[in-house]
């Protein structure tokens, strides 16, 4: 009996980093999920909420609750978007008639690695990735959702992987959504600090369960001409053949 899963694809992943969602889909299917993509979804409302535009974010959030109301199991390849729904919808929709539904959907949405390990009970997805990789524990996922052990378990089960500890791993990479635009100079400096730590780790790749962090870091690496590469977790897990070129990696 295949587990039915609805894919919640963050708006920026949909429009800018589609490979993240494609790799997520690949891995979910490999572990036996019947995956659907509710095409009516747009955005969870996080950009508006985080910048104080709660009035603009509210209809987004209410729409999300309605679009996903029929699904028991929703998987999202982003810690921050998952946290928006689980941690912040109760506050944002406090006065909405959909308040209880919002609380409920928060219990039914899972970050990708959290889903694999805790719901599907899987840590070995048959992946192979013969490269050195450092894991960057993205802030919302780690601190708001308490997700850390799960991605580490998944990574340790990857064949031929060389996992490197990351110095000062829990320090923010500097993306922070609109922060990266409003205070770009500080955001870039934080990214640079993270890059220095990554270089110290000796890893070729940095991975995370938040593709927004990786998108930002990739930009920082490019601007500072660093050889480091980013790859979303599902990008690693989607690789099965040993020695195959790393798909889904970005410069």
């Amino acid at each position, binding site marked *: 009996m295949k587990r039915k899963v609805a894919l919640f694809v963050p708006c920026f992943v949909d429009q800018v980093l589609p490979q993240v969602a494609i790799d997520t889909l690949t891995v979910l299917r490999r572990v036996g999920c019947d995956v659907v993509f509710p095409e009516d979804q747009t955005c969870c409302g996080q950009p508006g909420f985080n910048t104080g535009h709660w009035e603009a974010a509210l209809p987004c959030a209410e729409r999300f609750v309605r679009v996903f109301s029929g699904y028991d199991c929703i998987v999202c390849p982003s810690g921050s978007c998952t946290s928006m729904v689980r941690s912040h919808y109760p506050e944002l929709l406090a006065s909405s008639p959909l308040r209880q539904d919002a609380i409920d959907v928060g219990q039914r949405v899972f970050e990708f690695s959290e889903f694999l390990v805790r719901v599907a009970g899987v840590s070995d997805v048959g992946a192979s990735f013969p490269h050195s990789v450092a894991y960057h524990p993205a802030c919302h996922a780690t601190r708001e959702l308490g997700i850390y052990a799960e991605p580490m378990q998944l990574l340790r089960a990857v064949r031929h992987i060389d996992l490197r500890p990351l110095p000062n791993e829990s320090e923010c990479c500097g993306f922070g959504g609109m922060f990266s635009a409003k205070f770009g100079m500080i955001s870039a400096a934080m990214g640079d600090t993270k890059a220095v730590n990554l270089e110290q780790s000796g890893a070729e790749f940095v991975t995370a369960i938040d593709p927004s962090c990786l998108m930002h870091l990739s930009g*920082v690496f490019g601007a500072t001409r660093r050889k480091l590469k980013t790859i979303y977790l599902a990008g690693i897990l989607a690789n099965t053949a040993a020695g195959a070129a790393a798909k889904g990696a970005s410069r």
Partner: protein
Amino acid sequence: MSAASQEFLRKAIIKSADLDHRALIQKGMLSYDLAVAKGKLRFADWEAARNRCSAVKAEGIANLAKYLTEFEQRVIERGGHVHWAENAGQANEYVVNLARARNVKTVVKSKSMVTEEIHLASALEKIGITVWETDLGEFIVQLRNEPPYHIVTPAMHLSRRQIADLFRDKLGEDVKDADPVRLVAAARVALRRAFFSAEMGISGANFLVADSGMVAISTNEGNGRLTTSIPRIHVVVTGIEKVIPRLSDLAALWPVLATSGTGQPITTYSTLIRGPRAAGESDGPEEFHVVLVDNGRTELLANPETEEVLQCIRCGACLNICPIFRQVGGHTYGTTYPGPIGSIYTPRTAGLSEWGHLSYACSLCTACKGVCPVKIDLPKQLLITRRDFIATGNVKPAEHAGFAGFRWASADAGRFQMLGWVGRKALAVVRALGLSGTVLDPMRVWTKYRSPIALPKQSFREWWRKNGNK
């Protein structure tokens, strides 16, 4: 954009690019992190300690009128004076008038962030009184004519070399090799002269204890002790929120404050002052005054959402963990209180329009929430400050239009996809024309500091339409 906001950006640009500054702060924070990790091991249950301290401070705030008046009564019973100041002007007026009436020529001050907040030193200097900051870090920045860099370690941005040069210029003391031991000795000599000639000592308060009418003052250097022992007048300037119900509450608060502040088990001189010298005592001030300062604190109290901000015990832990503080440092904020707590406190007490930008100088990493010893939900406070900033009409027209547009676009999946497609095509054109990074590049805020994102050929939903069900 407010003037303060422009100034913040200007300084942030400079500091973000200053790699020497970054290295200095990182070094300081590393030693702090190690000390605190070690300090926490002394607790059987650090989380339990946080819970207890949070509850005690919350109890004090929830019953503030009761505990403040209880404190006041006990101080008066012991021969002290209590003065209530609604704002900086009233607080400064009281101290200035007192100093004038008592012929005070010299004042020694131990650390008090409230006195920074109200600019007490300059009010006293205006009437010709010499004010000596006696906390070594405060003394150093005072000599440099700059504000403190950090609420606990005011001079952490300076090297020993810089301090030695400063002492040579300002004190006429030439310290060989900028040796920290000799630098401290030079400061001790200079400040001893001040302690023994000052007519008035001004201190802050870490806690005001209601059930015993005591003022708790903690210092490592002992400057708080000398300030409150030698001069004949002792004035305490304190925020009203410092009150706690019972003396026994310090059994948890003292170790927790010291651990979060510096990683120490307890601050070296944990002092309790009950009033002026009592009958039969051989020394001590003849007069004791407590100035209770509101200056916007009752605003925070009036709003049930922001009341918890008053629980702050000014330990500095949130500043130390904040990755933004670690990049830009304490002077960039332009406020008395920097870091996460300052980015909430300042807009709420000194004006949302002028200072609301500080609440955005945060990546919402939420590290501060985990270290606050009194469990203030700092990330939530930052978010609601942003919410209120927008609600009071401070948003730039372009941003307002952007979010209205986004709201419209996300109301329909087809619309969303179409606008996304248009955006990608437009960006591709901008890049093809070599206009990336120019004024015509809509992603300029990105490309100013990062290499451009590779644009996908199709969105995920387009891919799904074609391949999803295979």
